[in-house]
């Protein structure tokens, strides 16, 4: 068997608008690169087995589970994490929705929930409740029972389409 050697590989990527260059082992996961190398600890690790969605970030405009992508696979790419959503100190409408509708309790799942929601609303600005629940199938929450998460998504959808937010 050919012996693998731990050659480090140069990678470059833009994260939340800032360019980073580093040399990494091929086996380094993107989530560890973001958290340990860049100190962006808003992206969480829950299950580490591709199930829970705590680690969801954008890679080249698509939501992905960063515990299941190698840092080298993001080479040359554009990443956005939860830290990149707020603009000029103003929460993004999805962040606002989770705040307003009490879409979290412990908050562990929240960064991933927000990133997945953001990507859903980009594809489908006006989702039905069924579509919301389907789009969040890869994000597990042990606290909320999901009801307020659905409301948070609906609130964000209203805000983003310029409508008034539902009160409930």
């Amino acid at each position, binding site marked *: *068997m*050919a*012996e*693998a*050697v*731990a*050659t480090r*590989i140069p990678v470059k990527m833009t994260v939340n608008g800032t360019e980073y260059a580093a040399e990494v*082992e*091929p*086996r*380094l*996961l993107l989530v560890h690169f973001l958290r340990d190398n860049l100190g962006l600890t808003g992206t969480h690790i829950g299950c*580490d*087995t*591709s*199930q829970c*969605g705590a680690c*969801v970030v954008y*890679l080249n405009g*698509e*939501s*992905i*589970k960063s515990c*299941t*992508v*190698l840092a*080298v*696979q993001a080479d040359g790419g554009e990443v956005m994490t939860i830290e990149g959503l707020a603009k000029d100190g103003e929460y993004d409408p999805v962040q606002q929705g989770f705040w307003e509708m009490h879409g979290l309790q412990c908050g562990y799942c929240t960064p991933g929930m927000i990133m*997945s929601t953001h*990507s*859903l609303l980009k*594809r489908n600005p006006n989702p039905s409740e069924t579509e919301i629940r389907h*789009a969040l*199938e*890869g*994000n597990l929450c042990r606290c909320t029972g999901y009801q307020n998460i659905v409301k948070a998504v609906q609130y964000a959808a209203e805000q983003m389409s310029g409508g008034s937010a539902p009160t409930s």
Partner: protein
Amino acid sequence: MFPSQFDYHRPSSVAEAIQFLQNDPDAKILAGGHSLIPAMKLRLAVPSALVDLSQVDGLRGIAVNGDIRIGAMTTYAQLRDSDALKAAMPLLSEVANNVGDPQVQSRGTLGGSLAHADPAADFTAVVLALGGSVKAVGTGGEREISADDLFVDLFTTSLNPDEVITEVTIPNPAARTGMAYQKRGHPASGYAVVGVAVSVTVGDDGNVSDARIAVTGCTPKATRATAAEQALVGKPLNEASIDAAAKAAPEGLDINGDHYASAEYRAHLVEVDTRRALEAAAKAL
């Protein structure tokens, strides 16, 4: 969890990829990584090197003129969102929309799913029922492998270690063909506990001229339910023939059970899902 160490190659052509595979028999292709990376984290797979196909030209895209041709590296998200595919064969977009979750769909590829031959995968059964095939390119040249010959056993295909799937072809269906897929997803992962894909063609005499039915999730590999197919051919597609086919569907299948669903329960689901898939296909005629 970290995978153990490996070398990483990112070829820009299929020829270069094959070269890497030929030089190192323990190297593995990396497509979307959504089966391979989890397996490597658990050390169930310990490749010495990964050959990442992401930068190889010409492996992505969907062509819908007559036969449908899909590049091996096309992701589920691309299948899900393609307007051309939704018009030409909406079933493929629907199936893609129900693989795992949206994040799995962003990364997982059609070629990777067929090459991996997971016993609970969706597209294995769907491509088998639709009579599809893959183009495989290796040191020995290029060949077309029909889905009937591709799946050999649990996680095992007839691909050689140095062969790359470059394209998947779904033949243009005959007139009056209805197709459908029914899946019972595992509540945690979404993988099929049982999935049944059907493609039924009705001839000029009003009787079924061709039926292909494939199950997944319950057998070591995606498998044709031949007893159900035989129950349909030559009969009109109606409640009676659909019922007979559904009841026959589990016959001759090597149905497995696990802590989540017993073999008996899965056999029951094969019957129920065959009935529902055939009813949906009849409506889609």
